[in-house]
């Protein structure tokens, strides 16, 4: 008696998209069960409380004896506030990603899934998507709440905040993908620390570059060629501060943001394909 074969056994090849969606749902559920999630929720609530306080004040400011228009100051402060919230979202994506792929590999629970006709790419990208959904939902809550409060209290338009949210999503893909890739090579703590340094380091360089500082050598290269984690958000919020700050070429930053997001996801897939499973 010969084996019935997959077709005779009622097996149909599930589409890669269906497999990816199934695994993404599992990955999101895993991410939601992480012990860090209640801490994230508490910090998000605390951030919202601080945003509520920060957007409520209306200071009278003088610079070198000259009164500065309130709208200009509000714009700069609002950009700073949203960029910090955006960078915090990127750190969150990176920290969650730094063991979301490694955990099921280390404890062996991934082996049953990968013994099915599931590609390494589907598995890795679904793990990344689970992290991104959670971190992006947190980022959207923080950025949109801040934007609505700024709109009501300072009269700033909401549309730039939506563009900044898009930039934040692209940054989350970049940071999450690179953090997951790093986790294949480094211990978890090292990968998480790398995420902190990477996000805040690039954030500071981008902020300096966008505020008109002359960056040369390595710092200049990071600002011009590296992932525009903060500069893409600053640029998206340009309408709030443009009269004050030179911001550079929007198309270049948007393209670089998309290229880094695509490259980090691709590198993750390539790195995971080469990884041997135990």
């Amino acid at each position: 008696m010969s084996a019935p074969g997959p077709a005779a056994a009622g097996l149909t090849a599930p589409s890669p998209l269906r497999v990816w969606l199934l695994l993404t749902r599992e990955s999101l559920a895993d991410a939601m069960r992480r012990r860090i999630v209640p801490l994230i929720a508490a910090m998000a609530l605390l951030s919202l409380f601080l945003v509520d306080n920060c957007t409520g004040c209306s200071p009278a400011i003088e610079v070198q004896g000259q009164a500065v228009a309130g709208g200009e100051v509000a714009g700069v402060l609002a950009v700073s506030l949203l960029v910090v919230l955006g960078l915090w979202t990127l750190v969150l994506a990176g920290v969650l990603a730094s063991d979301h792929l490694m955990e099921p590999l280390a404890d062996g629970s991934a082996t049953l899934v990968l013994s099915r006709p599931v590609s390494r790419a589907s598995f890795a990208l679904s793990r990344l998507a689970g992290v991104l959904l959670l971190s992006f939902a947190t980022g959207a809550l923080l950025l949109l709440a801040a934007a609505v409060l700024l709109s009501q209290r300072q009269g700033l338009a909401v549309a730039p905040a939506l563009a900044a949210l898009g930039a934040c999503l692209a940054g989350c893909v970049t940071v999450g993908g690179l953090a997951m890739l790093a986790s294949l090579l480094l211990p978890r703590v090292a990968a998480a620390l790398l995420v902190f340094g990477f996000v805040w380091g690039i954030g500071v360089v981008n902020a300096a570059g966008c505020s008109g500082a002359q960056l040369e050598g390595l710092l200049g290269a990071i600002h011009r060629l590296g992932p525009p984690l903060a500069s893409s958000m600053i640029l998206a919020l340009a309408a709030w501060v443009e009269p004050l700050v030179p911001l550079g070429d929007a198309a270049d930053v948007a393209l670089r943001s998309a290229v880094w997001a695509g490259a980090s996801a691709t590198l993750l897939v390539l790195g995971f394909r080469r990884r041997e499973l135990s």
Partner: protein
Amino acid sequence: MYAFELAGVTKRYGRRAALDNVSLAVPAGSALGLLGPNGAGKTTALRLLLGFASPTAGSVRLRGLPASSPAARRGVAYLPERLRLPARATVRSFLRLHAALAGLGTPERQIDAALETTGLVERAEDRIGELSKGLTQRVGFAQALLGPPELLLLDEPTSGLDPIGIRDARDWIQKLRERGCTVLVSSHVLSEVERTCDRAAILHEGRVIAEGTTDEIAAPGESLEDAFLRLVQA
């Protein structure tokens, strides 16, 4: 056609060869027991078959396809020795995921059949984390029985099962074999292999030192265990 084939496979970790020029070809519908002492290369062979690792030299094919291809794993089921299942998932939701990943056309019917076979109908809505080790192993078997599979790879399958579970597992494997399923059992328990497999291969220090039916491996009047000890200690 062979259900799976290792042709001149060597797998090295640094300077150590976990498998050294191993060739095994298993026809569809047969049952092969993979025997060997600890560190002989049994688990490495399974990892190569599932595409979890790549050979340093040689080729590994499942159903005629390279083992690294996801398509090669259609109709393949696996039960690892170190079984880790999602503790918060219910038995049914876990099986539903695996039925979908396996591409089953009528998953609920297949899931009900697997639950019935493994005696888990009453526990279908329980969370896996609430189950004993033996029942968890049954859940592992239930996912492996979905389909049913065309090729079943088992790594120490009776680990954690009580005598009744061991007898049941033997019956499930036998029923799958009657339906034409190819079975590979990696085990230390020689009597288990003797009962469930028609062929055996003995691995020692990464090499196949004996392969054939149990009658071919054992000398007249010799048990498989005696033959194993004689070959490994030679």
